[in-house]
């Protein structure tokens, strides 16, 4: 592993200059006493701004827990997490909520949208919660790139699975967050819709300078990323730069997955 990342670096301006998200000795323990399980056993990892990183690992490796802790959705039991230079470990619930709303975007595997709101209202929900106005031009750009223009007035139940995920992507990007976390964003989609969503996520990094961290167990999805971080039993187990589906698959085999 370890191909050069210069090809990517030349296309973006923010690469490598600073870490958008960083974890240092991150520990997460579930349960107490004899039944305690160390889901994360001291993970230190950095995610550069303007890059598309995939977190991979077999089931139970702690990849979802890592993402939850990085995004401030879950508390950690040791170590620290920084988002854009702010230490989030130790923030109270209110500040964490504010941080998520202002600086983090999310795309989940399913159930991304509120059924009572239209596509447009869903896209703007995060901004509204923060009491911010949407940048009209930026909103139009995202909506057009994602091909959602004629779907804006529809309720989620009137959209296909792929369209729903694209609305979720638009919502994640519209607030120009420091980082977008995507948790198995293609897990519920057919391969064509999945490819569209992944294409968009990669494009948002390359063309729009967004930072994306994606949790997935699908080697093909991971191959869209610039870098793959491998996790096993709550510890870092290596990484792959400029991965392909094959290189990811063989790395996973080495992990015994």
């Amino acid at each position: 592993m370890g191909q050069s990342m210069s090809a990517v670096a030349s296309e973006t301006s923010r690469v490598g200059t600073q870490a958008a998200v960083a974890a240092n000795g991150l520990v997460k323990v579930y349960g107490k006493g004899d039944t305690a399980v160390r889901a994360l056993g001291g993970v230190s990892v950095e995610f550069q701004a303007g890059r598309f990183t995939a977190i991979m690992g077999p089931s139970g490796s702690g990849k979802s827990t890592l993402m939850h802790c990085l995004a401030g959705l879950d508390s950690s039991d040791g170590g620290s997490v920084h988002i854009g230079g702010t230490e989030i470990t130790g923030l109270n619930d209110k500040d964490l909520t504010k941080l998520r709303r202002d600086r983090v975007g999310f795309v989940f595997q399913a159930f991304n949208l509120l059924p009572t709101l239209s596509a447009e209202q869903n896209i703007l929900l995060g901004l509204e919660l923060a009491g911010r106005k949407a940048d009209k031009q930026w909103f139009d750009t995202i909506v057009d790139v994602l091909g959602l223009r004629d779907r804006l007035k529809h309720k989620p139940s009137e959209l296909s699975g792929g369209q729903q995920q694209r609305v979720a992507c638009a919502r994640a990007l519209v607030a120009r967050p420091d980082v977008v976390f995507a948790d198995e964003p293609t897990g519920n989609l057919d391969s064509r819709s999945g490819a569209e969503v992944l294409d968009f996520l990669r494009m948002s990094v390359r063309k729009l300078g967004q930072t994306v961290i994606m949790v997935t167990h699908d080697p093909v999805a991971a191959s869209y990323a610039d870098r793959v971080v491998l996790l096993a039993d709550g510890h870092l187990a290596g990484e792959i730069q400029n991965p392909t589906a094959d290189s990811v698959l063989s790395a996973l085999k080495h992990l015994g997955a």
Partner: protein
Amino acid sequence: MLRTIIAGVRARTARLLLSSVAIMLGVAFVTGTLVLGDGITEGMRDEFAKSARGVDLSMSTTGEGPQAETGISQATLDKVRSTPGVQGADLRTVVGAAMLTQSGKAKPATVGPLASTPELREYDLKEGRYPTSPTEAAVDVRTLATAKVSIGQQITLLDKQDGKHPFTIVGTFAQGANSMSLAGSEHFVVLPEVMSGLTDELHAYGLVAKAAPGVTQEQLVADVKKAVGEQGYTFRTGEQLTTETLAQISSRSSEMTQVLLVFALIALVVAAMVIYNTFTILVAQRTRELALMRCVGASRGQVFGSVMAEAFVMGLFASVIGLLGGLGVSALMQVVIGAVSDDNIVVRLPLAPTTVLAAFAVGVLITVVAAFLPAHKATKVAPIAALRAQLDSHEEVARTSKVRIAFALLLGLAGVGVVAFGMNLDEEQALLVTGTGTMLLLAMVVTLGPVLVGPVNRVLGVLPRALFGVPAKLASGNAGRNPKRTAATTAALMIGVTIVSLVTVVATSAKETANAEVDSRFPADYTVTSSVGSRTLPQGMAAQLAAVPEVAKVAPVAAFGVPGPADGGAYLMATTPEMIGDLVKPKATSGAITGLKSGDVAVNSRFAERSGLAVGSTLTLGADATKRDLKVVAVVEGLDASGLVTLDTLRAFKPADDGFDSIMVKLRDGVTAEAGRTAVEKVTDPSPIAVIDSAAETKAQLNTQVDQVLAFIWALIGLAVVIALFGIANTLTLSVLERTRESALLRALGLTKGQLRLMLVVESVLMAVMGAAIGLVLGIGFGGLLVKGMSSDSFPIAFAVPYGQIAVMLLAAVVAAMVAAAMPARRAGRTSVVAGMAEA
């Protein structure tokens, strides 16, 4: 399968318990009202039965012969007493007297004889002893409290001629319902021989006797008939007397039971809606679980059966608790009624088989029926589809069916028709028919509920959106996302509020009308009346009052029932000529009352109609020497007599006494009410019977009565409203569980815990206000219809809306909704984002 059901019930204990609360409350209310009705009937029965207890023979006058006038004589009593087979006999009679209070004022009192045969007494000794000497008396325990007398104290009774009779109180008694206790004044029992001293005309209305041992009631009756003769008397055996007395009561108490049944019915409907709603949600949430059971091999019937069995168990369990709760509710209501009516009521909890049956019918049947539809729907879904489906009930929101609209239309047409029909009927029938019509209209609105929810929600949502922004916007969306569920949840509250506001509007209208009536009929500041109905005010008092410097005008009023030359007489009211049209001013519908002279009469419109009189015709009254022709100069309304004449006209008919029934007093301008009252009291104080009524006091007295009835109805319906609010809490809790993932998503996107809680509170308030607002609009509208229907030309009722009480109701709904949201909101706030996202 049984094991799966039991495991299921165990696993969801908390959720099922919550849903059971709705059933329990419903059952409790229905049984509570039924038990209360039975209790009241039983109480009345026992009270009335006291007058028949111990009696083996009862004799009363038939209304023919000399004894009809004089009552049963002492001689007859002696004859009965000496008849073989009679162990003891006593006369039943009461005498009206006046009791002097410590302030020197008289209060009406009723005095009865102490039966010499202890078994024939209609009352029970409570404290002390019965009188044994002519200067001793026993007093009713109620009098003890109201007249503030105590054992050992001296009291004075006044006879008709103001003769004073002092008595020492030696004991207290409690009595049932009889001619004395129903008279509604202070009650005393004295030795029989004292009675004749209190009055010239002792009229014994009945005689009761007890048989000697071994003598049957029939034999006793036959023997006594022989001894005193049958002419002019009616004889009954004790058993016949009991049966007749009880027959009288059932007709009285059945009215009360009917009223309570109406409330029970309302509670039933409300409870049924809450239960149905709860089950719909419960089963909808379990669609996936049920599908899994299908996938692992359970048949459709087994799955269906398991849901029904669960409903059955839950209904049974809740019914038992509800039944016990109902007994508690009934006991509480009786204590409350007792406290309000100032009566020492014994709490009775008769549990009739029909009550138990009703409890289980409500609890079990409604629960099972409520579970049937959702269970049927759940099992119709293909297992795999159900497993894959997203758990969100908004998908099951069906379009409003045409059947629903058609049904609502039918109800509406029927309602309008019945109301229109009721409008043309007389007062009481109008109330019944128009009331039924409004209930049909209410049913229409309930049916249309799911259609109304959307628009009403949008209108009501405007204010919270403006105030609270995004959370309120989300809440409004949630309240409107499943119109059927929201409609069913709010319908319960809507029905309760409709009934409460309807009753309140009708009562307020009646009260306001009565007050206006008092105002127009009593233009005077004070009315001096006699506290003892049978005794009039002395003639000189009018002149004395007129001489008081603070007094501007005085109108002495006398009234007398003048016999007619043939049959029909007339009850005439009279005052001085100059006061007619001044302080005494009934509304003239034709002719004019001002300038009414001696020999003229202004007749009441109803009397005029009955006697075929009009302005210009002649009314002949009196007999023999007093026979006179009166000229009808006006037809009036709002007169408490057949006709209004001058005092000399009345005197010409030689009334029994020449005193006044009342004296109206108008103060000079600028005299304060206090100064005026003090001045008037100087004149009235020396007279034991003169009391001062002011219009304000009369109104207050009227209003207290209406308010008491209203308070009772508020309490009854209040229970239905409590059930409805539990329904809201229930729906909200289940919705929160259902929307766990959605809440987690919102939290992830930046909704704070506080905002999440706010969202739920706003949703709850929106639902409550929706129900309350529609209920208020309907209640006020229906109230208006009822008032219009009951109102007639002779008795117009003005429509009045109690804005204060309505504001209280709305506020109460908002506060209650916030309380209802507290638990679910706490729960929603506690769930961690990650755990919520993981929820299937």
